[in-house]
């Protein structure tokens, strides 16, 4: 990933690519891609970091069966309060799934993408997956389709996949070495047999790599997801990043392992820990030397609905969609109009932040080393600061430095459980939020109550409600400039800045 040179990019370029930062990383990361590929990811919330502020996605759980076992998965688990991959509340038939997609697309016009991502493996359930895709290709041609697979059955399904309205496929690749694989995958089901250990892992790896190549040969974009498992594949993921890039993957998404004992997974039960925020960021930065990295992944539920980071699934349960009358032709018109308005808004924001960056750069005292600052932002989408501190279920984290503002990740407030009385969690919601914001020096939100204000300050995090409804990066840049002017940033740099890739 390259750092953009500030002051040279004050105007959006004519090609429509994002000249200004567009949430730091993403535009830089995608800048190396040819125009036709950038056009494909432009409004895909999961592929373009900038797009995820504006567009929504949904997943349908139609593919329950799985042909491998991962040590971080327990196919038994379902908790309505939890948001993580593999968790769903209702399994749908393809017919119901199609109905739900049409209902959501009509009610949430920002929706651009329908994904099938489990629980289970979509390609281990080809009938159900492709029945859903076939119907949607026909009935909702303006929706992009997307699959996420473990890759075991991928080579044999590539031809069928290419027949549908699919631009991208996500393959979860946690290793390219069977030795490592044996520590992640206890077994696979292959040629009508269960194959354990290294032999199984080797077959899985071969199939994944073959599938990856076949897809990229056919012009389908491939994103690779990897789960970062400390002590198992942390070092190895750098190698994975290199290998998959060489085979044509266009984006790498390293996600933290989620392994709580109560989830009943192998790792959970055996006490395997997940990575810290710092470990995750460090590895993402190291891989970034070779590969575009995705940092806004929310590890969504397999039946999530809405903008990334929100879940409106409860509005679209089976009994509710039964009652809805959907005129999809009309909905499609409305969607077109909404998407045009979003694009106009994005364009305007781009121009604006372009301007603010110029002034940011010119105002910076050039000679002094300014340390970078992490800031947390509460937003419900649209690329602006528009959420009350107390309502935020997650915060986007940005790093401001003398060079630029870049998005580096998100932190969920309620990743596992909202805590409180029911779970016997002694920590209050506010304390938990403060802990999760550790390392951030500022939190930007539309409003904040008196009590959390005091506690945040005490914890060394400056609450800031002065930039409500302003574009995120612009506000972060302004606050950083103010901190610089107030002389808060001239302490010697302890850690090297991350913006060095």
């Amino acid at each position, binding site marked *: 990933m390259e750092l953009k040179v500030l002051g040279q990019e004050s105007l959006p370029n004519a090609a429509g690519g994002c000249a200004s930062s567009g949430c730091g990383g993403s535009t830089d990361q995608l800048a190396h891609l040819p125009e036709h590929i950038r056009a494909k990811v432009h409004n895909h919330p999961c592929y373009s970091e900038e797009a995820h502020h504006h567009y929504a996605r949904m997943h349908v759980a139609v593919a329950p069966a799985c*042909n491998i076992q991962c040590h971080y998965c327990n196919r038994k688990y379902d908790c309505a309060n939890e948001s993580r991959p593999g968790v769903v509340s209702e399994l749908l038939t393809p017919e119901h799934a199609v109905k739900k997609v049409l209902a959501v697309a009509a009610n949430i016009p920002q929706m651009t993408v329908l994904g099938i991502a489990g629980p289970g493996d979509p390609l281990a359930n080809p009938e159900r997956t492709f029945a859903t895709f076939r119907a949607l290709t026909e009935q909702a041609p303006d929706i992009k389709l997307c699959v996420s697979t473990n890759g075991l059955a991928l080579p044999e399904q590539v031809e069928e996949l290419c027949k549908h309205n699919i631009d991208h496929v996500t393959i979860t690749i946690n290793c390219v070495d069977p030795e490592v694989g044996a520590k992640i995958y206890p077994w696979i089901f292959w040629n*009508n047999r269960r194959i354990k250990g290294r032999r199984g892992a080797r077959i899985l790896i071969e199939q994944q790599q073959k599938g990856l190549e076949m897809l990229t040969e056919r012009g389908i974009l491939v994103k690779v997801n990897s789960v970062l498992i400390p002590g198992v594949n942390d070092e190895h993921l750098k190698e994975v990043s290199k290998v998959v890039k060489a085979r044509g993957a266009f984006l790498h998404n390293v996600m933290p392992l989620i392994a709580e004992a109560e989830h009943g997974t192998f790792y959970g039960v*055996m006490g395997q820990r997940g990575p810290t925020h710092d470990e995750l960021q460090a590895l993402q930065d190291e891989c970034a030397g070779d590969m575009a990295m995705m940092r806004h992944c929310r590890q969504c539920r397999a039946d999530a609905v809405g903008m990334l980071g929100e879940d409106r699934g409860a509005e679209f349960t089976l009994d509710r969609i039964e009652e809805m009358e959907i005129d999809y032709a009309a909905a499609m018109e409305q969607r077109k109009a909404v998407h045009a308005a979003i694009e106009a808004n994005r364009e305007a924001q781009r121009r604006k932040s372009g301007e603010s960056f110029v002034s940011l750069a010119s105002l910076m005292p050039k000679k002094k080393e300014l340390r970078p600052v992490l800031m947390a932002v509460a937003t419900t989408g649209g690329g602006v600061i528009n959420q009350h501190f107390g309502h935020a279920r997650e915060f986007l984290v940005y790093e401001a430095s003398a060079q630029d503002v870049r998005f580096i990740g998100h932190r969920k407030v309620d990743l596992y459980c909202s805590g409180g009385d029911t779970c016997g969690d002694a920590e209050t919601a506010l304390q938990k939020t403060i802990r999760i914001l550790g390392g951030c020096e500022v939190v930007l939100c539309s409003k904040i109550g008196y009590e959390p204000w005091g506690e945040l300050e005490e914890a060394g995090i400056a609450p800031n409600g002065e930039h409500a409804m302003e574009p995120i990066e612009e506000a972060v840049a302004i606050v950083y400039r103010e901190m610089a002017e107030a002389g808060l940033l001239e302490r010697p740099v302890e850690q090297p800045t991350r913006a060095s890739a």
Partner: protein
Amino acid sequence: MALKIIESCVNCWACEPLCPSQAIFEAHPHFLIDARKCTECEGDFSDPQCASICPIEGAILDAAGLALNPPGSLTGIPPSRLAEAMVEIQAR
């Protein structure tokens, strides 16, 4: 000669499409095997397909009532460790 699915089944659907005899069906609270139809896959496959993909140890029993995937055989978690962890979790 037939296999049996018991209550530890988590209804994950993995076995149902694989059965060459269409002996497995979705039922509540868990999937079931129609004993009249199950051939233990003889003549079709060398291993019973349901037991070869089932992710849950102990969910499928043979005619003698023995688990085809006994505790520890799939996850590699020693049964004693699992029991310990469960106690820890429940004590919270």
